[in-house]
């Protein structure tokens, strides 16, 4: 707490005497800025609030858009749509599998890029930048072109493969940032004390880069479970949670979707808060 407070304090302390004569006007501007920020934040929260609220809507029709009264009944009927349940379990298992592969590949890349100078580093960075910045639509379309040309049946496996593709660079970048910040002398000390390369890595290096690996893995999981565009192009007959929702839009999205969305939202927020609090404590 105090760590994040201190850098802000001197700035304000310095500004105070300068701004003192025009204090009323400055305050008024700050208030306007504060109000504007909260208006934008409220706009950001509006659809989330609607999503959560309409999971409790006692709707009678297929289209869940007008408020009909409060009910808990949908919570007991989460499994009413078996294909929705399948879609959610698919989303979770794809995200877990993709995260596992992505984290291993991305961590290795991050270590290579952060630790060594080698020929081909430039092109590697360029390809990673392309993977992060190119539109999902183009990635999806080109992947499907590849699968069609080679006669590969799209489905579960191709989705996992595509998810690893678009998240591996994010993990590599996150881990690289951590590796660059490492103190090399700690590893040298371990080696001086007779530790082998292998032992040095697992007992010294890895624990130090672990926070980077964990945040990279969390990011990969979040990217995977949320992905729609590339998934749609590489899914074949396999359905994931976002694909199911998209398919249901025309006929009406049932309250079960709102509840599942709320649960995923809650888990995400809890993890993010834990992450913020623990990283604050670490520094």
């Amino acid at each position: 707490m105090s760590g994040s407070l201190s850098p802000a304090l001197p700035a304000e302390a310095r500004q105070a005497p300068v701004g003192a004569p025009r204090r009323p006007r400055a305050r008024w501007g700050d208030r306007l800025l504060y109000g504007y920020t909260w208006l934008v934040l409220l706009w950001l929260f509006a659809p989330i609030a609607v999503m959560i609220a309409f999971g409790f809507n006692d709707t009678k029709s297929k289209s869940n858009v007008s408020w009909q009264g409060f009910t808990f009944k949908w919570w007991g009927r989460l499994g009413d749509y078996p294909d929705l349940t399948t879609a959610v379990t698919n989303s979770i298992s794809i995200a877990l599998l993709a995260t596992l592969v992505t984290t291993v590949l991305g961590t290795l890349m991050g270590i290579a890029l952060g630790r060594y100078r080698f020929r081909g580093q430039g092109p590697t960075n360029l390809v990673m930048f392309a993977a992060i910045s190119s539109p999902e639509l183009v990635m999806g379309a080109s992947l499907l072109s590849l699968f069609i040309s080679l006669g590969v049946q799209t489905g579960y496996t191709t989705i996992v493969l595509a998810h690893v593709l678009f998240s591996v660079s994010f993990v590599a970048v996150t881990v690289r940032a951590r590796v660059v910040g490492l103190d090399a002398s700690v590893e040298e000390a371990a080696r001086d004390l007779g530790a082998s390369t292998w032992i040095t890595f697992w007992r010294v290096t890895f624990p130090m880069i672990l926070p980077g690996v964990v945040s990279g893995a969390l990011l990969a999981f979040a990217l995977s479970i949320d992905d729609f565009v590339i998934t749609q192009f590489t899914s074949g007959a396999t359905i994931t949670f976002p694909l199911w929702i998209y398919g249901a839009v025309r006929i009406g999205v049932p309250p079960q979707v709102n509840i599942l969305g709320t649960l995923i939202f809650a888990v995400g927020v809890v993890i993010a808060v834990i992450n913020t609090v623990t990283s604050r404590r670490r520094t």
Partner: protein
Amino acid sequence: MRQKIAPYLLILPGGLWLLCFLVVPLVFMASVSTQEGDVVNGFVQTFHLANFGNALGEYKTQFLRSAGYGLAGTALTILLAYPVAYWIAFKAGARKSTYLLLVLLPFFVSFVLRTVSWKFLLADDGILLQPLKDVGLLPADFHVLQTTVAVIGGLTYNYLPFMVLPIYVALERVDPRVVEAAQDLYATRRDSFLRIVLPLSLPGVFAGVLMTFVPMTADYVNASILGGPANTMIGNIIQTEYLVNNDYPAGAALSFILMAAMLIGIFAYAKALGTENVLEAAAR
């Protein structure tokens, strides 16, 4: 010796993955884009370059519309994001990370579900419009869905955090002593903002523009969920060609045109702003 191969061994699995599934597919898409045929009889490579001309001719409107929506959405995200980023960077004090988390909160809801929630919210008989219609403030046939406003609004909503974050990072880096020096030299608040803070934060805006304009222009989810037939974007066409019509050559040609247009746009943008600025922004 070992030191020399180590980085290559580490980079190999991930590098191969990127090569096989990012670079190679582009070659295959290029090949598909000049094929002829249909899904029943198969596609044959005939180097039919006319696919490009046909695609461009037939869907010029959608290309231009996508660019227009992308520009409008990007401009709106700047207007919305800049003051928010400024407030968080300079005024939020100890609660900075809390506010950043609040800005990122929508990301914890799936992109499709967020957009569907806007559809709930803006529905003709939904919780926003129906009460206003009931008291006579809006005509009974008033609607927001299926309009340009809804699509651009949805795009702006979905990509706003991508603009807030880079601007925040740039503002955060502004040395308060520089602002202090300006004020010591009798610069007004307005002048110290316009001549010191704003120019120093521009790399963040440039990065934000790249991070929002590209995905907005290629988006089809917002147009498909919130828009109507008159709001079809180029992404909708490509998605339909690939997944509904199974006309892969047309879809591939359109994707290539889109990609080329974006690359040219990005390079022109980089040239206009000075390559260093954009590279610096991109490097983050």
